[in-house]
Every structure is written in structure tokens, then in C-alpha cells.
């Protein structure tokens, strides 16, 4: 039943997409400044039916309707309702439907909210977006249909992978999807702009809100994924340079570059073709990432979602996107002349772009090299953190410096007065760094440089905030929040990296272990039955001899029954100054447990800083609303 409703709705959306393209092509030829009413109506229907389609699947999951293969394979009656719903996008087919939803919703919103812009440009955008929608709808129907029925109807489902049964992971995919699939709209708009000749300043204005929205959500999605890895994977790390994490970083670098160069396009009406390249690149990289993750070429935490047969289709689609972009771009490309003053703000914004391009290429090489090597020479290697750390970290130093100084250079020309301020702040940063170095521990020369520039950036922005309060203007606020967030992020990651304590040992119930000024008492073990798992909970008393404080930590070993899996839940005590992190795993047939104890300074501040980066974007979105 649900299967028929779902498939019916998908077909309806398919037909609506075709008719929108058809009507839009006709509307292109007709005179008049306005888009015909019926195109709006069709788009509204398309959006409604797509959302209904998604709700149908959600209902299937809530009611545990195992007549759908998708529900049978990814759900179970004993699962809490929240995870039943989250299960909808916790699998390939369902997430593809979510993907289509976002394509359609963005398509409609772009049509409605950009009514002041050129008609041809909007129609072309609509056409391209609907071609994308059609592509993914066919993929959904032919290869990954979430509404496929199964007969006879099974009595019970197979269950969702337990490590995915987690609040952070329930919201991680929707956030990332709004971020990554949201890019599709300015991919379409960029192609439309090339075709219709509607470029420059106005083009920048038409897409900037959408760029900001998708940037905010991408940033949030990446942070939430990282937080999940921190407490769920049980290693105490938060960024692993895992191929899938890298795949999510690539579009982020491109979109961050795009956000900055859009400012130049809007204010100075130049860099048009560079902006177009970035628009196209961002979505192409999003799809490339999807391809790499879903086809199973890359092995990582996300392999649950992989299947080579999907690969061919996404690859075909990707090729089509790349070649049509290239052909259209080269057809319209004209050389632009740039005459920037070397000390102007444009130069610094371009500098941001060069850094982003560098980071992007580094991560791309690190990610693709193993695949290339495997295909060409049959050698299997994996590129890990050392490569990325060596190549990326030194470049962070000038990057941080420019992040502070760049935005303060006025448009076109600027005075040398700023130089004094810079010198003074660098000196202060050096002094603060010396203080940390002297009192808390030694670290390498490069780390010194990182700390100095990070502190410099923070101080510089602190002065900016002071200025902001004096001027009572909010215009600069988003930039300051995001840049400050970035400076703090680098600073706290540095501190965390330098001063973390980590110890691996075996302990039995009643045992005591001393590490530095910590004393770890293994008090007892309890067994608790939960709805969909059984938990072995350890109780640990951690005494800090330095300040005589006592903390209790209770890590868990969870035994899930559907499907049979063991997971290790870290116990984390988050405090303002540091996180205590403890995981426990059983040593088979022994009374000993393997304990991993970590003290990670300023962990919470890493998250706060990262959220500040995203917050800057959201603040900007609300500011824009108030201005209108």
C-alpha cells in the first residue's frame, strides 16, 4: 500500500519536472517581464508532492511497515520512535529521497524569492535545476527506490546499525544535505547566468543568500559529524583525515572561497568568471564526494552506505555535469582585466581564495592519490594525518595573519597607520605565547608560530569588536564572529594537541591506577537492560590530587541485539578547562578490562569555536532580513 503511494508520488514529481521544463522553455520565447503563473503553480505542486513523498516514507518507518524493503532492512519495532524517524535518512535510499527533497525545495524558494531578477535567468535556473532533479529521480527509481515492496511481509526488521543510533548522527545527514545539495541551486544559477548573460553584480545578489545558507549548514553538519566521532568512535580524537571527512571538506573549501569572492563581485563588479567557476566547482565537488562515499571506492566509517552498482550511475551523472559546465563555461568565457591595488581589500580576499585553493588541492591529492595508485599500479596505500599535517599546518600561519589584517584594509587603498597596530599586536602575541611556553610546557618552533598568529588574530578581532561597539554598526559582526571562531579553533586545537594526556592500561574491578596527578579507582560494574540493548556500565572514581577534586565516570559496553553488535560508549566529563575521557572494553575471558583514559584540555572550547564560525554565517542571514 505505502509502496504504491510512494512510487505514485515519485512519478507525479517526475511528470511535474518534465512539465516545468517544457513550460519554462516556452515561457523563454514569450515577451513580457514576468514568469507565467502556471510555472509557479507547477513548482508549488512539485514541492508539495516531494515533501509528501518523504512523509510517506517517514510514516513507513514510524509504523514499522515492513512491506517496504527499505524499512525492513533499516528498522526494528523495538527501536525508540526518534531513531525510527532518523532511520528514514540513515540509509542510502532514504537519504537519496531527502536529497531530491532539498533539490526541489531550493528550486521553488529560488524561484519565489528572486522575483526582482531577470526573467530569462530565473527560467534557465529553473530548467537546469529540474534537469538535476530529473537525474536524481531516475537514479532513485531505477537503482535505489526506497519504496520497493517485499513479499511475503517480514514480521520483524533487521534494525539500524547501533553506532548510528545517536542524536548527533540523526541530525548530521539533514544538515549536511541542506549544505551540500543546497549548492545545486547556484550551480544551476551559474549555468543560467552564462546562458542568459545575466552576470556581474546582480548575479552576485541573486545567489548570495543561498550561498550563505548552504555554507552555514555545511559548517554545522561537519561540526556535528566531528562531535559524533569524538564521543562515539571512542578514540578521543575529533578529526581523523578520514577520506569521508575529506570528501566533506572539499566543497567546504570551495564554498568558503566563493563566499569571499562574492563580496568582491557584488561591491566591485569584477571576478565574475572566477565566481562562476567556484559555483560550478562547489556542487561538482559535493557530487564527487557523494560518488566516492556511496560507490564504495573509499573505505571509511561511512561504508555502511556503499554499493558499487550505484557508482556507475552517479559517475555518469557527474561526467555529464562536468562536461556541460566546461563546455558552457568556455563558450562564454572572456578575459577580464583586474586592476587591484596591491594593498586593497580585494587583494586580501583573493589571498583567501589562494589559500582555499591550496587547501582544497592538498586534501584532494591526499584523498585521490591512493585511488589513483591502486588503479594504475595495484599498490594499496592509505594517506593519513601525517601528510595533511605536514602540508597544511605551516600554511595556517600566514593564513591566520591575513585573516586578521585583510578585512581592515579599506576598499582599493589604505593607509600605513595600520602597520603600527599590527606590530604592537604581534608583540603582545609573542609575549602571551612566551608565557604559555614558559609555564605550561615546551613545543616545537612551528607550534610557536601557530600560537603566535592565532593569538594575534584573536587580539586583532578583540580590537575590532571594541571599534564595532563604538560605531554601533552591526555590519562587520558576522565576519568578526566567524574569524574569531577560526582563530580560537586553531588556538584551542593547538593547546589540546600539545597538552593532552593519554594512557592505555588494563584494570579489574576494585583496582587503582595512578597517572600523573590522577588516581583512577575502578569501583564496580552494573548490568542494565534497555529497550533495544543491554549495557555493562562501569563506575570509575577519578581523584585529581592537584586540587583534590573528585569526578565519577561511567563508560558503557553496549550489546545491541538488532543487529548483534557491540559498541563502546565513552564516558566524558566536560568541564570548562578540560574533558576527562574514559573508555572501557572487555578483555575476553578475563576479569581485566582495557581502559583508555584521556585528559583533553579545552575540548569544549574547540566545539564552541567551531560553532562560532557557523554562527557568524547565521548572524549574517538575520542581518540581511532586518535590512530589507
Amino acid at each position, binding site marked *: 500500500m505505502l509502496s504504491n503511494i510512494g512510487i505514485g508520488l515519485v512519478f507525479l514529481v517526475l511528470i511535474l519536472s518534465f512539465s516545468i521544463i517544457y513550460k519554462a522553455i516556452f515561457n523563454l520565447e514569450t515577451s513580457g517581464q514576468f514568469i507565467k503563473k502556471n510555472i509557479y503553480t507547477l513548482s508549488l505542486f512539485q514541492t508539495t508532492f516531494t515533501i509528501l513523498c518523504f512523509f510517506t516514507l517517514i510514516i513507513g518507518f514510524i509504523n514499522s511497515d515492513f512491506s517496504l524493503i527499505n524499512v525492513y532492512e533499516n528498522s526494528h519495532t523495538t527501536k525508540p520512535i526518534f531513531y525510527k524517524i532518523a532511520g528514514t535518512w540513515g540509509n542510502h535510499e532514504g537519504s537519496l529521497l531527502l536529497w531530491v527533497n532539498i533539490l526541489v525545495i531550493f528550486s521553488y524558494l529560488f524561484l519565489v524569492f528572486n522575483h526582482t531578477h531577470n526573467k530569462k535567468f530565473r527560467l534557465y535556473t529553473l530548467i537546469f535545476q529540474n534537469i538535476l532533479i530529473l537525474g536524481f529521480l531516475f537514479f532513485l527509481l531505477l537503482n535505489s527506490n526506497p519504496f520497493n515492496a517485499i513479499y511475503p511481509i517480514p514480521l520483524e526488521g533487521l534494525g539500524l546499525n547501533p553506532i548510528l543510533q545517536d542524536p548527533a548522527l540523526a541530525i548530521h545527514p539533514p544538515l549536511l544535505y541542506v549544505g551540500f545539495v543546497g549548492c545545486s541551486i547556484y550551480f544551476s544559477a551559474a549555468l543560467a547566468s552564462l546562458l542568459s548573460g545575466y552576470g556581474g553584480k546582480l548575479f552576485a545578489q541573486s545567489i548570495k543568500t543561498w550561498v550563505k545558507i548552504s555554507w552555514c549548514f555545511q559548517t554545522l553538519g561537519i561540526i556535528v559529524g566531528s562531535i559524533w566521532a569524538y564521543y562515539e568512535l571512542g578514540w578521543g580524537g575529533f578529526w581523523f583525515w578520514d577520506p569521508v571527512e575529506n570528501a566533506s571538506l572539499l566543497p567546504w573549501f570551495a564554498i568558503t572561497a566563493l563566499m569571499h569572492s562574492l563580496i568582491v563581485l557584488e561591491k566591485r563588479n569584477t571576478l565574475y568568471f572566477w565566481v562562476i567557476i567556484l559555483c560550478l566547482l562547489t556542487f561538482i565537488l559535493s557530487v564527487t564526494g557523494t*560518488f566516492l562515499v556511496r560507490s564504495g571506492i573509499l573505505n571509511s566509517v561511512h561504508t555502511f552506505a556503499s554499493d558499487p552498482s550505484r557508482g556507475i550511475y552517479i559517475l555518469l551523472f557527474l561526467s555529464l555535469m562536468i*562536461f556541460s559546465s566546461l563546455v558552457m563555461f*568556455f563558450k562564454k568565457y572572456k578575459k577580464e582585466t583586474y586592476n587591484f591595488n596591491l594593498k586593497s581589500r580585494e587583494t586580501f580576499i583573493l589571498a583567501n581564495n589562494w589559500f582555499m585553493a591550496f587547501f582544497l588541492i592538498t586534501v584532494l591529492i591526499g584523498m585521490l592519490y591512493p585511488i589513483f595508485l591502486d588503479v594504475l599500479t595495484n599498490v594499496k596505500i592509505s594517506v593519513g594525518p601525517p601528510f595533511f599535517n605536514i602540508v597544511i599546518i605551516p600554511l595556517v600561519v600566514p593564513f591566520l595573519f591575513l585573516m586578521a589584517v585583510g578585512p581592515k584594509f579599506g576598499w582599493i587603498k589604505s593607509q600605513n597607520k595600520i602597520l603600527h597596530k599590527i606590530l604592537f599586536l604581534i608583540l603582545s602575541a609573542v609575549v602571551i605565547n612566551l608565557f604559555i611556553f614558559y609555564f605550561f610546557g615546551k613545543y616545537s618552533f612551528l607550534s610557536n608560530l601557530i600560537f603566535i598568529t592565532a593569538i594575534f588574530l584573536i587580539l586583532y578581532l578583540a580590537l575590532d569588536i571594541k571599534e564595532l561597539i563604538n560605531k554601533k554598526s552591526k555590519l562587520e559582526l558576522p565576519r568578526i564572529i566567524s574569524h574569531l571562531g577560526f582563530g580560537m579553533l586553531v588556538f584551542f586545537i593547538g593547546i589540546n594537541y600539545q597538552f593532552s594526556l593519554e594512557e592505555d592500561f588494563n584494570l579489574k574491578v576494585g583496582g587503582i591506577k595512578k597517572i600523573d596527578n590522577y588516581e583512577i579507582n575502578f569501583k564496580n560494574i552494573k548490568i542494565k537492560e534497555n529497550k533495544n540493548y543491554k549495557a555493562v556500565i562501569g563506575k570509575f572514581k577519578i581523584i585529581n590530587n592537584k586540587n583534590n577534586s573528585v569526578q565519577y565516570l561511567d563508560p558503557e559496553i553496549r550489546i545491541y541485539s538488532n543487529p548483534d553488535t557491540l559498541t563502546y560508549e565513552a564516558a566524558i566529563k566536560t568541564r570548562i578547562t578540560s574533558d576527562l575521557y574514559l573508555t572501557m572494553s572487555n578483555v575476553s575471558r578475563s576479569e581485566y578490562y582495557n581502559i583508555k583514559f584521556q585528559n583533553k584540555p579545552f575540548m569544549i572550547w574547540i566545539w564552541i569555536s567551531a560553532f562560532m564560525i557557523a554562527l557568524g554565517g547565521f548572524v549574517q542571514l538575520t542581518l540581511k532580513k532586518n535590512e530589507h
Partner: protein
Amino acid sequence: MNISIFKIIIFSFAIFFLFIFWQGLKKNNNYDTKRLIGSRISNFQLIGMNNDDQYISEDNLKKNQFTLINFFASWCSPCRTEHKYLLNLSNKKIKLIGINFKDKKNNANNFLKELGNPYDFVGKDVDGKISILFGVYGIPESILVDSNLTVIKKIVGPIDQTQYDKILKLIQ
């Protein structure tokens, strides 16, 4: 559209990338274990689990008429069920090599102490790289090779009575 070197380079790049991706997709069948039967093992070298100085290579395998390479770990419960068959096999005309897969040394030693050690040699594969060579994607898995280093049987999952009988027949 006039052709310039720049455009040609960009297009070639795009084609190259997509070609590699396409080839990469085909590559995926090195996780398809069926292909492995009949093929010869090459570049085989295994470092001892408890002693880094100990190792065996292809030359050692060539001396045995039959060798069963078994992937195991202390955290793997099906490994326990197949263990008695491995112990039985250890009295037969076959050499057993255990590869300890993504495991902790202490746990693995406890595992063998508790259940008995059927292996003539125990090697380690801490990061799972050697296992990739054999197309192992889950354990337990076992690979039977002859003195030419040709793979004659591959068992995915625990060895049970039927698999055990088949092995005995093959090494007769």
C-alpha cells in the same frame, strides 16, 4: 568555440579523473573473494605476533604440502566456534598459520591460552593490510593453499563440520 592548449589540458584532466573513477569502480572486485581461487599468492610476508624478529614468507609456505591461513581475533565470537576444528586440523597433514586481525596482543594471547593454540605460526595484521591482500572483509576467514602457493579453497565465516570434511578431502 576556439581550441586552445589550456582548454585541451582542462578537458584531458576531467577525462582522466573520470576514467580513474570508472576504473576504480571496476577495481572493487578485489573484495570479491571468488576471483582469488586458482590465483597464486605473491609478496607474502608475515611478522610474528609476539616477536617482531620472527617472520615467514612464501619460501616457508612452499615447503608445506598444504597450508591453511586462518584470520582470527579475540573479539570475534564465531572464531571461538570454529576453533575446535582448527585444533583437530593441527594433527593432520597440514600446516596452520594464524593471522591475528586488528587485535591487541594481550587479548590474542589470552584467547589462545584459553582455547589452545592450533597454529604452527601466529602472525599479526594490526591494521588489516595483509587481510586486504586476501580479500578478507570479515573474520573468521580461512584460505587453503598448496605447495605452489595456489589458493585452492577459501572459507568465508567459521569452519563447520561440512567445511572441515571438505578440507580433509582436499588434503588427502
